[in-house]
């Protein structure tokens, strides 16, 4: 039964210790300027022992030589230089003391021995920090600047580490230290192996240094590892470019696929297509605004709610355009082109009048924010979802066209209007539905594009030339051609970019398409045959 009092006592001691620590950080800092370098080293060790987050900052500022004492009030402050003037803020509270007159403060001096102590203290604090992210950052920083004083620290930290990612980073830091600071041949070869597996530019830099190691075995292993890393990097670079290309391709596909229906299937040039995309994007904006103000909890669902609405809004406008204008112009494609251009101007101005001329902010739901690493390439979630979305839209469209009654009627009307009419198909209704479908898909594209592009009244204009190029390149009348066209143009663009820069890449792709169309006027997947020329 004597256990209880002892427990109580130790609890009380802990409590006292923590309170004391909290009090003493202030005190410790205020005593920092006093005494000689040895006294200061002792205080540094005590500051480190507090484990306080602010202590880390104190030490870092001290190490950088920016810790000073104000003559006016004796406060220990951090000095920041702006031009020729010094500004001071309290090192612990952050309170701003404004500009310091020259000679109005004195520096807390450090010498080399003290610097080493401070570094060790910082290393200990960060390498054993409760937050794994901080530990990881510390390990990475140790990797970049190998320090003989820290080798032991790193080894201890590695032994105590539980997080596998941090442990890996620590092992790499130790390996870098071994190569930079020396070790036995076996140790060095082990370190080379660790860095070879690490395989990024940092590892390559360290290994390039080791390739001149006096020990031939180590030098050869390092040179081989550098070569290996370069090869892997090229492969990953290729993969990254393919990914960027697929990502751009999915955007092009979304923008062009609705056009593939109106232009490819119906032969109608809809220059207002880009504006229908824009309407989809603005629908997303409006839905998010409504959610923000009324049901903030639903924000992550905003895109799922916006998608059907955007389809209906753009589709409805599309049906109105078809019934109101386009149907009077069938068989006159050039006139259709002009009339729909006029509509596009009016739609732009309409949106500008309602929503204003500036960019509108459309937020990313949480599942579309951020990125993840795949090997050595970075994949952002929003791009990945857009690719998935584009392929899904494509699949659904394919299904609608090939397997549903309305799809059958659409194809019938396209192929032989008079015959279809004789068989009782309401061709006018089918025209409106087909145009509406193409327009609705443009609206869906707008939902996706709102996630990666500026939502402004000019949104559609920036896609119209590109999407026509995709349809024409792929071959009008063939939505598989649109798929192939979108992805091949996307990838071609992204592979040219590193060589030529983005704008020139785009110009080259345009020039290529212009030349290509002259070679194959009906596109990549042309429907060839005798009937085509008619």
């Amino acid at each position, binding site marked *: 039964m004597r256990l209880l009092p002892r427990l109580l006592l130790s609890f009380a001691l802990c409590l006292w210790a923590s309170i004391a620590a909290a009090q003493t950080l202030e005190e410790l800092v205020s005593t920092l300027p006093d005494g000689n370098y040895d006294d200061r080293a002792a205080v540094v060790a005590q500051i480190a022992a507090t484990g306080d987050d602010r202590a880390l900052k104190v030490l870092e500022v001290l190490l950088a030589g920016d810790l000073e004492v104000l003559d006016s009030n004796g406060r220990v402050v951090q000095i920041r230089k702006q031009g020729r003037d010094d500004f001071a803020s309290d090192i612990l509270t952050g309170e701003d003391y404004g500009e310091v007159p020259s000679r109005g403060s004195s520096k807390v001096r450090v010498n080399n021995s003290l610097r080493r102590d401070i570094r060790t203290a910082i290393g200990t604090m960060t390498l054993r920090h409760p937050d794994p992210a901080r530990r990881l950052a510390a390990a990475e920083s140790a990797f970049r600047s190998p320090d003989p004083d820290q080798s032991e620290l790193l080894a201890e930290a590695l032994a105590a580490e539980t997080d596998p990612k941090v442990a890996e980073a620590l092992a790499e830091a130790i390996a870098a230290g071994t190569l930079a600071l020396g070790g036995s041949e076996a140790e060095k070869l082990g370190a080379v192996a660790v860095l070879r597996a690490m395989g990024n530019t940092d590892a390559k830099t360290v290994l390039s240094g080791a390739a001149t190691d006096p020990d031939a075995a180590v030098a050869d292993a390092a040179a081989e590892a550098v070569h290996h890393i370069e090869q892997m990097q090229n492969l990953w670079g290729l993969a990254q470019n393919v990914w960027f290309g697929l990502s751009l391709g999915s955007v092009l596909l979304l923008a062009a696929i609705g056009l593939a229906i109106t232009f490819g299937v119906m032969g109608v040039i809809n220059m207002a297509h880009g504006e229908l995309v824009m309407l989809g994007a603005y629908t997303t904006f409006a839905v998010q605004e409504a959610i923000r103000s009324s049901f903030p909890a639903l924000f992550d669902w905003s895109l799922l709610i916006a998608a059907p609405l955007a389809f209906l809004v753009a589709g409805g406008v599309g049906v109105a355009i078809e019934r109101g204008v386009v149907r009077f112009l069938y068989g006159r494609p050039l006139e259709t082109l002009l009339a729909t251009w006029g509509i596009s101007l009016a739609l732009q101005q309409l949106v500008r009048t309602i929503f204003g001329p500036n960019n509108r902010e459309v937020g990313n739901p949480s599942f579309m924010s951020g990125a993840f690493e795949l090997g050595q390439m970075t994949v952002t979630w929003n791009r990945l979802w857009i690719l998935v979305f584009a392929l899904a839209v494509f699949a659904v469209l394919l299904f609608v066209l090939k397997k549903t009654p309305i799809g059958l009627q659409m194809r019938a009307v396209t192929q032989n209007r008079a015959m279809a009419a004789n068989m009782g198909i309401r061709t006018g209704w089918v025209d409106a539905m087909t145009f509406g479908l193409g327009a609705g898909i443009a609206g869906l594209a707008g939902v996706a594009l709102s996630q990666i592009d500026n939502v402004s009244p000019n949104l559609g204009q920036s896609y119209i030339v590109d999407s026509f190029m995709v349809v024409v390149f792929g071959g009008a009348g063939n939505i598989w051609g649109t798929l192939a066209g979108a992805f091949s143009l996307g990838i071609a663009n992204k592979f040219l970019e590193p060589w030529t820069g983005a704008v020139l890449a785009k110009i080259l792709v*345009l020039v290529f398409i*212009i030349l290509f169309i002259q070679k194959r006027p009906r596109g990549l997947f042309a429907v060839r045959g005798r009937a085509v020329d008619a």
Partner: protein
Amino acid sequence: MLSLIDRRMGIFLAGLFVLAVAVPAGNLAMAGQPVPSYIVALLGKYLCYALLAVALDLVWGYCGILSLGHGAFFALGGYAMGMHLMREIGARGVYANPDLPDFMVFLGWKELPWFWTGFDMFGFALLMVLLVPGALAFVFGWFAFRSRVTGVYLSIITQAMTYALMLAFFRNEMGFGGNNGLTDFKDVLGFSLQADATRAGLFVLSAIALAAGLLVAKAITSSKLGKVLIAIRDAESRTRFIGYRVEEYKLFVFVVSAMMAGVAGALYVPQVGIINPGEFSPANSIGIVIWVALGGRGTLVGAALGAIIVSVAQTLFTSWFPELWLFALGGLFVFVTIFLPTGVLGLIESRLGRKAKPPAGAKEASA
């Protein structure tokens, strides 16, 4: 020559002559200056647009080639003239460099790019005003027409052409002043561009160029070649089968039209004082098409009239109801294509009850 001037052409040329005399007189010679200087520049700009519209009508109205990239030829002519005007600034620029235009000094360039050489000579610049748009039209047309790219496909790739050029000219590395284009011109052939007399002179030149453009276009369309062009527009395949190399005819008229557009651009630049890559934008080129459609395609005079009507409307609208202009323009596109297939000129002439030849293409369109 006189045989080319039919009634509508006569009326238009007479009006143009009156304008070319009255506007400079009202600006320079009359007390109280009833025609302010800015109006002279504005009207001069309209005349350049009218010439551009005539150029487009030549290919679209008569040969059925709907170019959505004619703005590119206009802009290239403008750039050729702008390059000369830049060279003429000489050492009077901000950086006072006798050879390099300001923007090149700003970009840290040490010497003039090779393609700027010669532009200090006015004659060379004039030649380039014709040759550069002509050469682009020749190369582009040679590929396109030989491969029998027609209809909307041709329209779309002409649009891509001007779009690609716009992107290219936006680049500083191209050496044409990038985003800002060429501007801050001082004088032309020693005459200050700020002087009223110079502006009036440019106005008269524009009127002369428009009249000449109309007569050249009229001469071409009245010849047997003009009949072949119409034949190509109405039944291209039939024209081939009676032995005409359609691509050669298209190429000829396309190049002539591009040169005409280049001249229009060259006259436009000194009057507005700037040329930038925005002139290449696809929207500008489609704008030209609506001028021609509104005025009445295949009529030449109508195209010029359409350009002037739309431009005047744009000036008035954008100063009175700026936010309504795009609605009006958009509505105009729809209205003209659906209700006015023969354009304003067709409407006026049928109202006047004249038994004119049925407007080109109108009959087919309704069939």
